[in-house]
């Protein structure tokens, strides 16, 4: 689990952990059922206060991203749940908002942006060649 903590931009550390775990889950790099590192281990690895990691895990649990199991340990929850989908939509919406804001500044019409996205999507296809029908 690759998490990077920076104190350069002032974002609270617990929030950096929450956001990066959400991103890892949404992008599939953390799969449902994967075990999360223990609070102590992650605190030592990231060199941050264990209470900060505990707070991040609590927030992730409340958001339905991870769950505590009776056998001790924290696991990534089954991502088919509506909560998880809502979270993925939210994450993607943030990126889209940023894209739209920038395209507006640069005087692109929405239709042009959508066309451009289709073009880029087509350009990315060869990367997964072989699997195409």
């Amino acid at each position, binding site marked *: 689990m690759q998490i990077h*903590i920076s*104190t*350069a*931009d*002032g*974002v*609270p*550390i617990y929030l950096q952990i929450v956001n990066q775990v959400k991103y890892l889950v949404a992008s599939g790099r953390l799969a449902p059922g994967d075990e999360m590192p223990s609070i*102590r281990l992650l*605190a*030592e690895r990231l*060199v*941050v*206060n*264990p*209470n900060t990691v505990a*707070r991040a895990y609590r927030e992730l649990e409340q958001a339905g991203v991870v769950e505590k199991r009776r056998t001790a340990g924290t696991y990534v929850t089954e991502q088919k749940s509506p909560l998880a989908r809502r979270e993925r939509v939210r994450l993607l919406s943030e990126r889209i908002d940023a894209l739209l804001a920038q395209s507006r500044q640069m005087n692109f019409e929405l239709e042009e942006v959508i066309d451009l996205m289709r073009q880029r999507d087509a350009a990315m296809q060869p990367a997964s060649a072989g699997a195409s029908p």
Partner: protein
Amino acid sequence: MIQEVSFPPAHTSPLIEIHRVTRRFGSKTALADISLTVPRGGVFGLIGGNGAGKTTLIKHVLGLLKAQTGTVAVFGLDPVANPVGVLGKIGYLSEDRDLPNWMRVRELLRYSQAFFPAWDPRYAEELREAFDLDPAAKIKNLSRGQRARAGLLVALAHRPELLVLDEPSSGLDPVVRRDILSAIIRTIADEGRTVLFSSHLLDEVERVADRVAMIHEGRILMTATMDDIKDSHRRITLRFSTFQDRPPQLVGAISSMGSGLEWTYTCYGASEQLKQAALALGAAVVEETPLTLEEIFVSRLPVRSSRSQAADLAATPQPAAT
């Protein structure tokens, strides 16, 4: 002191209780009426510039200095009157890492073991290997980093209830700094232990401390949990509908900069509350960003000419420093 002080029951008593301590060296006031409570468990960071009074405060906790006025209690005891009871449970790494230069590493370990009844020889050996300290090396020949590691080993190997580190990172390379921060984290991850450390490297403090006291010129500017400090400060940029020669007074603003239509404020207060205040000034919040601990600390430093106003920063917004 005429004032009556009531102490809480023993089971809730804080680990360190400093009450109205003033310390003067000649005509210089090093600590000016400082009161500070360090609860049991967690990492308490003392932050402030050089000469702010951090080391003097730590020396009072260790009983190396006796309070001229006020009281100091550590584990409920006066550290000056009970040096054995207090120091035996404290691991201490001083800023200058004063170790006996004439000893070899192995002698340092044996010597320290005799001093601390709770010394754990296996843990000491584990640390010695992890820190790559040669038992036959003379202390005086150790590099700066290895010397700090030797000092850290001595501070840790008796598994102290309280670990006190005075500017542990100063002058060290990132690898040794990481060893020190890891030691802090491992210490509190073991249930109930406490770390008090001073630093002017605020990014390190932001990573590891749960609680912070900001010290400046012998006074405490602010003490709070890290979460509260981070939650209650932010930078907001306001866009005004008309041109402003000077930044309009915003409730909760600590400092401001900008010109014309856009002014950026460093603020103390909740996001919603600041938005309302901005609205009342006929401005819109166009940007809001979190602040680093360092930015918060700098914003809290009193304006040079009005040092006396520093005492109650949280309550009174400072005049804008432009």
